[in-house]
């Protein structure tokens, strides 16, 4: 492996890491606000990819303009799922039950996708999917650059929304202590619904980029959710910055191992890295140790 190859692998890892960070940010936001682990996040990304696929193949709407349609659709789906299922879970065993409920939701979505599209692998096509730019000695595929730019823009937007707006303050308050947030007049239920909507809405963007860089079928969601969960846990549950750092860290490791050793072993190293880090720091890289509940 030459030095250039190594650098190329690191750059690829950072670019794909950005996109994973975006998908994981949705997951970590939902967890932070709701204490809910959304197992369906992976299949929702695939759903977002299929929506983009439908729009571009049948209606001739390009991938990027199509986001104006798919993001609101996914937002609405998130709101509906929060309203129908997540809201009903009792506080007591919410996290555990949420795994089951969202898993059931994932199965239903997977079933619907299988019924509509079958199990053949497809990939999103656009003029910028297969082109690349040559910059500073690296070949950078356009779609990776676009995906990275979109991810960074959205993450900055998310960050700004959370830390500079009144709604963001309400979200963070509900995240820290929902009873206290309730007492000072924050409509916690509304905050939760919108947060889940946002968390699911970003999967439309993630799905578009994922679908353009990978071939997928309704089953791909399971591989994806395990990776996203790894990112979220490594970053520390509920921490968006942690999710970004963890995504880039894991994807760089993944890509470097793929180049240096073999692509078949890269995913294994990905999970080994996760297990090692968590054995040393069980709360994740940026997570805080939870206070003991009384």
């Amino acid at each position, binding site marked *: 492996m030459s030095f250039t190859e190594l650098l190329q692998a690191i750059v690829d890892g950072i670019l794909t890491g950005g996109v994973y960070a975006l998908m994981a940010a949705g997951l970590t936001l939902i967890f932070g606000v709701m204490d809910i682990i959304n197992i369906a996040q992976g299949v929702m990304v695939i759903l977002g990819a299929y929506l983009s696929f439908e729009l571009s193949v049948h209606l001739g709407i390009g991938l990027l303009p199509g986001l104006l349609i798919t993001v609101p659709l996914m937002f609405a789906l998130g709101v509906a799922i929060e309203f129908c299922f997540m809201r009903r879970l009792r506080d007591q065993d*919410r996290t555990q*039950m949420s795994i*089951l409920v969202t898993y059931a939701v994932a199965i239903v979505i997977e079933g619907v996708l299988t019924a509509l599209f079958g199990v053949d692998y497809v990939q999103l096509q656009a003029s910028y999917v297969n082109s690349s730019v040559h910059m500073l000695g690296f070949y950078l595929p356009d779609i990776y650059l676009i995906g990275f730019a979109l991810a960074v823009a959205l993450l900055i937007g998310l960050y700004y929304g959370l830390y500079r707006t009144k709604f963001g303050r309400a979200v963070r308050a509900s995240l820290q202590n929902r009873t206290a947030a309730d007492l000072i007049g924050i409509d916690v239920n509304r905050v939760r619904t919108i947060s889940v909507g946002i968390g699911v809405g970003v999967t439309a963007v993630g799905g578009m980029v994922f679908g353009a860089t990978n071939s997928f079928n309704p089953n791909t969601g*399971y591989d994806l959710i395990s990776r996203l969960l790894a990112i979220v846990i490594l970053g520390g549950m509920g921490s968006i910055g942690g999710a970004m750092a963890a995504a880039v860290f894991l994807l760089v490791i993944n890509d470097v191992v793929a180049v240096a050793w073999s692509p078949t072993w890269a*995913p294994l190293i990905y*999970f080994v890295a996760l297990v090692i880090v968590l054995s040393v720091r*069980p709360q994740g890289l940026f997570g805080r140790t939870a206070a003991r509940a009384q």
Partner: protein
Amino acid sequence: MTARPSSPPPAAGAAPTPPRRALTAGTIVVALAVFVIFPLVVTDPSTTSIAVFALVFMVAACAWNIFSGYSGYLALGHAVFFGSGGYAVALAARDWHVAGGWPVFALLPFGGLVAGLIAIPVGLIALRTRRHTFVVVTIAIFFIFQLAAFNLGFTGGTSGILLPLAPFSAANFNQPFYYVTLIILILTVIVSWMVRRSRFGLQLLAIRDDEDRALGLGVKTRRLKLTAFVISAIPVGMVGGLYFDFVGQIFPQFAFDPLFDLAIALMAFLGGLGTLAGPLLGALVLESLQQYLTQTFSSNATYLIAYGVLFLAVILIMPRGVVPGVSEWLARRRARAALEPPPSEREASGVGGSSGLAGAAR
């Protein structure tokens, strides 16, 4: 701790009244008789093969419950033990040239042993963490095993390993598999029951309710959790060997199947986490239903949707599982009938009602 499961099945002080104990014993005898007689009455191979699968999952769910149900640690990686047991038996049969049928069955304890040995380092690593981190670590370890099975040479990779064909007659091919699984199931249930009514089981329940407090009161939590983890892995490894012997071959994607991880958790949840009868009931109903739906709907999609919707409906209607849900309902009804609060909700687990003796056993 938000991950704390629903209130523990109350370990009551009073022993069940004699008629109730007789009723429980009667239920067990009848259930056992039905299971023993079933393949003699129903000989249709497609039905008996569903029965074998159902029994395999009953063992897996019951064993999973010994760790996750009692200790409250949600492990989503038990397919590691299912697959490891399967590979141990398949590799042993191939390399030691074991004939199909009963000789392979004799290898099943070896499969359980391998699964138990693997559970020790896995448990040591995973049990350093708690709650949702623990869940994700078990998932990650699961994927490490799956990817290793794909990539290591001795597993045969994606082409898998064939197991020797059992020399049973075509008409009664399923019967030996059925009875062997039934024996493993009975042993697993006995172990689960013994754990539940022992001091060890009470300490596990204490960990579930409040681990820090249990630790403070002198419960050796780490050692206990690891022991329960290993105990729960062994039966899963044994039925893993049997399952792939029954199917005839083993591939990485079936040996280490993420759906298996979730399926047994789901079965235990639907039946009633931490009860003795719940996981058995959940596995029996869900696995039979799943196999039936797969056979009925040729389309995978219809089956997925039906399964998912049903699953959502049950979770939303009975969030604590069927067995606690039904027994609560019965207790309420009894209470209304007697116009006084129920003396105790001791019989909180149907067939496993005797498990409520846990407190009295000390």
